[in-house]
């Protein structure tokens, strides 16, 4: 059944399409260098004729203007090797590999008899974010995980337990309580075991930090045989040489602000800040051997303003920032 007014909606949208095409043609005509006095008069008349015309023109012009803002547009338009020259950035490259689907197809292939002898299918998880991307995922048990930029999470859910591994980057876990199926997160050299709670983990090449937002977790370090229970507002760090640190307190508004796209640091060393920036920067930021990597800074900035922050650092601190084709280099400055 055609709802009343459907036809008029169709013709209205046709009207809009026509208007948009006219607007685009005007933008191009007025950028052609071939427009005549008569064209300009006709354009002025058309523009003044209706608000819809004005909006359509603004829209078309914004597309034309935006071409200049595309990163690497010069490489895209120089058609030789333009595809390979282009540096892909922040495309939505989240990879999904849902084991549930794999298990289901296995069940079809092997038949019910085989399935009955097996425990319920294992659910395999694999999530990854691109640089600059922050993504919240809902897991099959109702838990949610927010992944920071350039982060990867894998895992397996079975009837007996839930296991996750934070392979890289950082993540905020809001784990649904399930007494029968405790959840363990492996990362670096520590395991974090919980029933149901909210906590944050950041994994780096040289350390792991666990911060508890709500409830409690148990952090163990199998290598050193140490373990520590943490409750809300507490944080611990583990590195390969020292094992688990003392329990610290932390400010959730600073520590967890990355979830809304803001990085905050209080008296943190530059190398630590750079590692976090690299989860969001289009070009990798490198510290040269001469850079003051241990310079301690207190900073707060949105993840899309890293360039601006670096320029500010260059101006205010003894660091020099060099923007290069493929990376941004930080060296000792004056």
């Amino acid at each position, binding site marked *: 059944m055609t709802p009343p007014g459907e036809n008029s909606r169709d013709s209205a949208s046709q009207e809009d399409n026509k208007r948009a095409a006219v607007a685009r043609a005007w933008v*191009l005509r007025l*950028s052609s*260098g071939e427009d005549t006095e008569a064209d300009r008069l006709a354009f002025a008349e058309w523009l003044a004729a209706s608000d819809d015309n004005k909006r359509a023109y603004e829209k078309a012009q914004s597309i034309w203007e935006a071409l200049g803002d595309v990163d690497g547009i010069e490489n*895209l338009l120089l058609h030789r090797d333009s595809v390979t020259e282009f540096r892909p950035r922040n495309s939505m490259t989240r990879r999904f590999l849902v084991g549930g689907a794999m298990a289901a197809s296995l069940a079809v292939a092997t038949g019910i008899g085989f399935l009955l002898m097996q425990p319920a299918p294992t659910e395999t998880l694999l999530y990854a974010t691109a640089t600059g991307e922050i993504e919240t995922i809902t897991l099959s048990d109702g838990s949610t995980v927010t992944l920071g930029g350039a982060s990867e999470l894998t895992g397996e859910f079975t009837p007996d337990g839930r296991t996750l591994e934070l392979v890289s980057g950082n993540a905020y876990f809001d784990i649904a309580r399930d007494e029968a199926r405790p959840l363990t997160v492996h990362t670096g050299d520590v395991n974090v075991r919980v029933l149901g709670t909210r906590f944050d983990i950041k994994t780096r090449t040289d350390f792991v930090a666990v911060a508890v937002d709500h409830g409690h977790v148990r952090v163990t370090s199998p290598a050193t045989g140490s373990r520590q229970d943490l409750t809300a507002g507490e944080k611990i760090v583990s590195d390969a040489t020292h094992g688990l640190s003392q329990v610290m307190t932390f400010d959730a508004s600073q520590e967890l602000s990355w979830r809304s796209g803001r990085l905050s640091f209080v008296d943190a060393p530059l190398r630590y800040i750079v590692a976090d920036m690299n989860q969001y920067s289009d070009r990798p930021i490198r510290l040269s051997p001469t850079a003051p990597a241990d310079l301690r800074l207190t900073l707060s900035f949105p993840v899309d303003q890293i360039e601006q922050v670096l320029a500010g650092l260059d101006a205010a601190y003894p660091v020099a920032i060099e923007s290069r*084709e493929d990376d941004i280099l930080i060296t000792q400055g004056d």
Partner: protein
Amino acid sequence: MQAKVNERDRSPRTLMPGDPMSAPLTDAARQRTSFLNSLFRLHYAELVGRLRKVYGAGPPDPEDVAQAAFSKIAELDDLERIHSPRAFLFRTAVNICLNSNDKLKRSRAFVRSQLESNFSQRLEEKSAESVFMGKQDLERVAHVIRQLPPKQREILLRSRFRGQTYDEIRQETGWSQADISRQLNKVMALLQAELDR
């Protein structure tokens, strides 16, 4: 390693983008200059490199254009509203080149006057960079460009970036003005379709 939060014996030097130096107001001018200098150090060489790809050795001379773009940025009151200096500088530099063609400059000025009389308020608000399209939309624009045939890319480069008139493009490539117009209209339709999706 982020230390335990401890506010007692510290005067934190909070650095905010756009308000980069939390220094006393009396230092504002000095800080601004210092900030501009660091922007220059950070972006100048790369900007020249990008412009060289578009214009070759010139004219216009990529170094002259880059310098002119920095002069423009230095005149802005609302530096803090530019959130991507790199993109803003490139846009400014390209606009300087477009304006070096008298015909294009005249038409651009005409369009601006028409829009201003119709949208005075809104254009005022757009002084710095607020008109920039979001990151994801720009990625969609890039996606469309990547799939264009070489001829359309060539025309786009010449018209939108080198600021050549259709007649100049015709003289150098042999393509007719009607063909050039048709190709660009196709490109724009593809872009709008992708963005409206």
